[in-house]
């Protein structure tokens, strides 16, 4: 029987055909931990499991992105502990400033088509952009994976998102990601693997935007068949194919021709409405960044809006590139200079203020328009602050006016 992509990847790793609902224990290709949770992973490995070493250092990757560079003595000490662990174990470590784990692993070719990537971060679904089975886990699961080289999985059912048409002007991959949250709800894909079909034309950055937000629907993974631009940068294994007859537990169809700019209202990612509903809402801060929308293309989109313009008086625009490579691309042309000329503040590549820990934490009653992926109450700072989620185009247009603005109106 034809298998979905998630089933093919898990079957290949298990060495036998597996079915949804089955429990399998298998060897992931990559185990990733970041600075925020690696200290607890190391502690669980050494203290609770009593294991002195990881099973295979080549399987492991460490990335410093959540508080980068360190903001307190405590975070600095924790990061040094992670550095010492990486040195002792011979594990690859991507330092402060290299970028967000989900961007770096794609740039480095560590996440690749057909691979199983488990990460200590819920947005590890992002690796599905290049055809990996990427999924997030907690510190104990990651410590066990590093210590034993293995993880247990329940094979997920698949939800196929079948997309037709192309984006209208002013509508982007982020609008589709938000629309999926609107249509399916915050738990609409719990424990399922989402398979995105009909988007072979979509560039890699748009795929990363969508796959990163699969978790916001509760999904275990969000996978694109390795097609189009992905095959130019990565070689897909010959056993992996996108089979149109694969049996999915659920299918939904979306016609991009009727999709309008979307926005998520505080304080839930599935409280999504057409942007026009809240146009005019005053904002204090615009945040352009994250694993969802912090790439060169996102900054370019903003720069195209901001050329020869200034951000509104009383509004802050914080730009946090997803990686050093993406920052260098924005410097290589006039993208970054346009953003800075318009009044943007540039921070270290990494997660930025997405978790409210540094580089733009929100104060009481602050209203933020973010290109990120979560707007839970208090996520970016004080619980009275509010977060709206939208595309880079909407973010740039809103930074210019100081209120929520449709980019097509400028």
């Amino acid at each position: 029987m034809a298998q979905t992509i998630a089933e093919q990847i898990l079957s290949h790793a298990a060495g036998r055909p597996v079915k949804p609902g089955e429990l399998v224990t298998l060897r992931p290709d990559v185990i990733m931990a970041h600075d925020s949770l690696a200290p607890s992973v190391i502690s669980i490995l050494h203290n609770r499991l009593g294991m002195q070493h990881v099973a295979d250092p080549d399987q492991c990757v460490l990335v410093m992105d959540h508080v980068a560079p360190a903001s307190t003595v405590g975070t600095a000490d924790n990061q040094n502990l992670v550095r010492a662990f990486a040195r002792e174990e011979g594990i690859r470590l991507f330092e402060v400033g290299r970028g967000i784990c989900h961007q770096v692993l794609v740039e480095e070719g560590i996440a690749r088509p057909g691979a199983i990537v488990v990460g200590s971060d819920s947005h590890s679904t992002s690796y599905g952009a290049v055809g990996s089975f990427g999924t997030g886990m907690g510190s104990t699961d990651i410590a066990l994976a590093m210590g034993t080289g293995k993880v247990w999985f329940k094979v997920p059912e698949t939800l196929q998102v079948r997309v037709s048409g192309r984006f209208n002007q002013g509508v982007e991959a982020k609008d589709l990601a938000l629309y999926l949250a609107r249509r399916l709800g915050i738990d609409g894909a719990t424990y399922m693997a989402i398979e995105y079909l009909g988007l072979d034309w979509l560039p890699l950055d748009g795929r990363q935007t969508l796959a990163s937000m699969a978790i916001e629907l509760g999904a275990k993974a969000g996978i694109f068949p390795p097609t189009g631009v992905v095959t130019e940068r990565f070689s897909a294994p010959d056993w992996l194919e996108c089979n149109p007859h694969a049996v999915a537990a659920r299918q939904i169809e979306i016609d991009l021709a009727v999709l309008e700019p979307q926005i998520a209202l505080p304080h839930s990612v599935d409280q999504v409405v057409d942007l026009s509903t809240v146009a005019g809402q005053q904002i204090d801060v615009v945040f352009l960044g994250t694993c969802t929308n912090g790439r060169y293309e996102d900054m370019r989109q903003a720069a195209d809006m901001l050329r020869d313009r200034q951000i509104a008086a009383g509004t802050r625009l914080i730009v946090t590139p997803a990686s050093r490579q993406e920052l260098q691309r924005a410097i290589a042309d006039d993208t970054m200079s346009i953003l800075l000329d318009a009044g943007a503040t540039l921070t270290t590549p990494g997660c930025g203020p997405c978790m409210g820990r540094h580089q733009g934490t929100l104060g009481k009653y602050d209203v933020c328009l973010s290109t990120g992926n979560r707007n839970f109450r208090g996520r970016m700072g004080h619980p009275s602050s509010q977060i709206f989620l939208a595309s880079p185009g909407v973010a740039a247009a809103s930074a210019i006016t100081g209120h929520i603005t449709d980019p097509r109106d400028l």
Partner: protein
Amino acid sequence: MRLHKMMNEGEKQMSRVWKFGADVDTDQIVPGRYAPYMLKEGQDVKDYAFIEARPGFASGAAAGDIIVAGPNFGCGSSREYAPEALRRRQIAAIIAPSFARIFYRNAINLGIPLYESAEITQALEDGQEIEFNFQQSQISSGGTIYSLPELPDFAAQIIDSGGITIYVKEHGRFPGE
């Protein structure tokens, strides 16, 4: 110490229900700003459980209390310190119609039993006095006995060991491997 055994030792003690709504995200359970990574020496994540979403929980929750919540409990980030904070508060069980995937794994791995039941969620009120009996899989309150659904086999094995790290140390393998 195994959590449920700790709860059931000694004299019978009434516990209470802490009731929450739907889609309780991990930023509500412990905001990222209170992650162990961000805390100073001597501070404990258990003191920041629901610090903003439900002030009074951390100071009021006692060993053996249970959480009862709406669907999709624990959605959002992978932060294990969310269930870890509840474990350190000695929350004995969580009952909800459904759980978010990563939270489910994390809580079971830490040895917290999770029960999926819309009926019991509906029946129990905030502040209600109950008695939770893990061995008999039941909750009693004011003469009414609620039978909890059976835990999936792998989860029961992990909980019975007191958490997956203990299970793996004892058996040298994962449940079902």
